[in-house]
């Protein structure tokens, strides 16, 4: 006969054991509740919130494009003294930001020919380039041709193009009649570089 519960047997003993177990777990639960953080009330709160949505920022773009007008060419072969030609070059701002651009020239081939050929760049009016009536942006040796300054910022002579705008330039190239015979059979190629940056 067990010492502490001598009068309990069978089902009665099972009930006693179950009650003991319940008391044990009840005790643990009580201790657990009492052991939770002291300032229990601070866990209760009201909250609210508002938002500012749809604040959208997008980067603009600075893109410049150029193209020769239909039928125009900037190439000419078999030049002789006194030859000249006109060509229209369209410059477009295909970005979303106003831009400023400058033009510089790099030359390959005969430097002598490059410095002999004369280039005049004009803005195009409503007349064809052949009218040569626009404002002169550059006139001088082909090899030194430049409009504005590609350095950062707005420099004297720089061209400004609003977003989506375009303009046409007229290029007139002339081989002076004073060209020396030593230029015979020489050739030169000029590359016009349009450097653009954001305006402001």
């Amino acid at each position, binding site marked *: 006969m067990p010492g502490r519960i001598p009068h309990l047997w069978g089902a009665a003993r099972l009930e006693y054991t179950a009650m003991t177990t319940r008391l044990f777990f009840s005790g643990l639960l009580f201790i657990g509740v009492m052991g939770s953080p002291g300032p229990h009330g601070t866990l209760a709160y*009201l909250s*609210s919130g508002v938002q500012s*949505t749809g*604040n959208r920022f*997008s980067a*603009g773009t*600075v893109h410049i494009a150029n193209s020769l007008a239909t039928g125009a060419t900037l190439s000419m072969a078999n030049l002789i003294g006194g030859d000249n030609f006109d060509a229209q070059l369209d410059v477009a701002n295909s*970005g*979303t930001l106003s831009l400023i651009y400058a033009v510089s020239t790099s030359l390959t081939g005969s430097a002598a020919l490059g410095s002999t050929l004369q280039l005049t760049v004009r803005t195009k009016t409503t007349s064809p380039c052949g009218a040569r009536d626009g404002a002169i942006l550059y006139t001088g040796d082909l090899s030194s041709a430049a409009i504005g300054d590609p350095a950062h910022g707005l420099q004297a002579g720089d061209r400004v193009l609003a977003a989506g705008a375009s303009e046409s330039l007229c290029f007139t190239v002339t081989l002076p009649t004073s060209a020396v015979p030593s230029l015979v059979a020489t050739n030169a190629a000029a590359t016009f570089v349009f450097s653009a940056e954001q305006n402001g």
Partner: protein
Amino acid sequence: MTSFPISVSRGQQLKLALVGALAVGVLATMTGRGTLAYFTTQVRSDTNTFTAGTLQFHVGDSDESNLTPAVTTSISFATMKPGDVAYAPIEIDNVGSLAAKYGILYTTTTSGTNLAPALDLAIVGKGSGTGTKTITANNATSCNATSFASSTVWSEQSIRTAAPLVSAGQTIVAVGSSTLNLAAVSGVDILCMQVTFHDHGAPGSLTTGDNVYNDTTIDHTNTTVNFVFDGLVSAAAVINNP
């Protein structure tokens, strides 16, 4: 005296015992009957009312006011370039009956390449409910380059100093530890948001430096910023009625 023996069976003994007990109970009841008569009186404390407070914010910006839960497009810039700066005011109103504090966080989304890392965000505020209830022309115009750094105009200068936006979003002021307080009923704070397209260096080529964000596709590099202002009651109250 002559005694007569009485013979009582066990059953009769039990009956006698029950009758005796009943008799004792009846006598006991009769003994205390007079104490059932008494005077009474009563007083009451009525109408002890407890009402839940309310915590509700409204928000406004330069073209919307007193809205909940959100205003839209408080600050935006469609074609930003390095060096550009945008300013915009946002007003937070506490229209609830409880004093509150609030926190600030933001998230970003993009429909292309996220511009967030190229942008700096700075925030100043009027401070602790000292702003005007509605964003007026004066409040709106003081959120600009001229006044942004003025601690006279914007007393809360340290809400957020200029720092890059994080694409994943960020908590600027955690509401739990916030000191941005709004009085009950009419508390208002006006914030001035500054967003700057900061310098990434002179382009060494068409794809380096600032040109990293000069996308070939128009409007492809963008970010949409959503600001969230979470409110919380300032503190639990304990009222001791004397």
